[in-house]
């Protein structure tokens, strides 16, 4: 199969570019769709919050030594632009899929472009409990996203889209010679950049052997982090969108403030545990 793909011109460098461009295209498709059906306020609020939450937290993960993204074309901080872009696009998709699965065709009539205005009494479950409703919806979002990541992360290791820190004594980051330039030709971000962030996190792994519990070859903490990230973000986003009396500017200010709070809290809470 691999040899056949190479004969068709799908060589390693092409596959890496195809991955990056596919994710950027996915982001653009979702962004345009959101502008179309939800309008500029909600689109900017959701996509900016999700993009920067992921960009900051993923970059902290890279600088902490947990993993690197070698060989991409476009970077923001220490992360390929495609990474936070595709994360918020995936969340955008999953939120709406969850809504349709839970509310059936009632969820079709929720576009601002159709004149929809939120009336939370129409969408709360469990006898009107907003918190329980948000918890269930956010949990479904997180589980659906986790299901994707359980397949995506092993594929990322196979295709060298990103590389996890090896679990060896004394190893707390990715040093020279660890990354084989398989599937890409641009040799950038081949090792963990040396910064004070790496020094700060290294103290939590004094013996190395970082993230010893691996599932399908991937650190267990990765799957926990993915679940928590999606759960927290979609809970906060849905909470803000359910505020029917809040204006657009207030919703945006609150969501962005929550994201600013999320970045240090989640980065510390999800990088340090050496599971």
């Amino acid at each position, binding site marked *: 199969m691999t040899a056949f793909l190479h004969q068709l011109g799908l060589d390693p460098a092409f596959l890496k570019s195809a991955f990056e461009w596919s994710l950027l295209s*996915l982001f653009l498709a*979702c962004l345009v769709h959101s502008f179309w059906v939800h309008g500029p306020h909600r689109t900017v609020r959701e996509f900016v919050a999700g993009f920067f939450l992921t960009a900051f937290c993923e970059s902290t993960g890279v600088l902490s030594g947990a993993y690197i993204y070698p060989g991409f074309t476009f970077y923001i901080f220490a992360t390929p632009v495609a990474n936070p872009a595709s994360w918020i696009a*995936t969340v955008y998709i999953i939120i*709406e899929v969850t809504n349709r699965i839970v509310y059936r065709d009632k969820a*079709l009539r929720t576009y601002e472009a159709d004149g929809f205005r939120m009336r939370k009494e129409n969408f709360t479950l469990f006898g009107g409990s907003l918190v329980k409703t948000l918890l269930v919806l956010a949990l479904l979002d997180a589980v659906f996203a986790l*299901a994707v990541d*359980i397949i995506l992360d092993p594929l990322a*290791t196979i295709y060298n889209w990103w590389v996890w820190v090896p679990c060896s004594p004394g190893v707390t980051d990715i040093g020279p010679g660890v990354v084989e330039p398989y599937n890409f030709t641009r040799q950038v971000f081949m090792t963990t950049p040396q910064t004070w962030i790496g020094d700060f996190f290294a103290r939590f792994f004094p013996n190395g052997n970082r993230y010893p519990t691996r599932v399908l*070859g991937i650190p267990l903490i990765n799957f926990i982090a993915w679940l928590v990230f999606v759960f927290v973000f979609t809970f906060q986003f849905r909470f803000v969108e359910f505020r029917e009396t809040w204006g657009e500017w207030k919703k945006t200010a609150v969501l962005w403030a929550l994201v600013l709070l999320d970045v240090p809290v989640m980065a510390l809470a999800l990088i340090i545990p050496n599971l």
Partner: protein
Amino acid sequence: MDRVKYILKYHLHVILYLYFWFGLFVCGLAAPRHRVEELGSSLVSQGWHLSLLSLFLVLPVPLAYLWRMRRPRARRGEKAPLADRPAA
């Protein structure tokens, strides 16, 4: 054209989700054996194992979507609400 616009407007999410799943499925099938061994996993030793796993973990979500969004038989003869209906 209106039908296409309607589907893109109201069902783009599930189309993109299916596209995402299909990409994962194909990547699993095309994964080189020597790279799959990098995982060091006893459960996944060949690429198609991941493709198979995606059938159980990822594909049920769009299938649940399609099942939940189907129109009940009793309503098929009725007109859909305005927002659900492509323009004539």
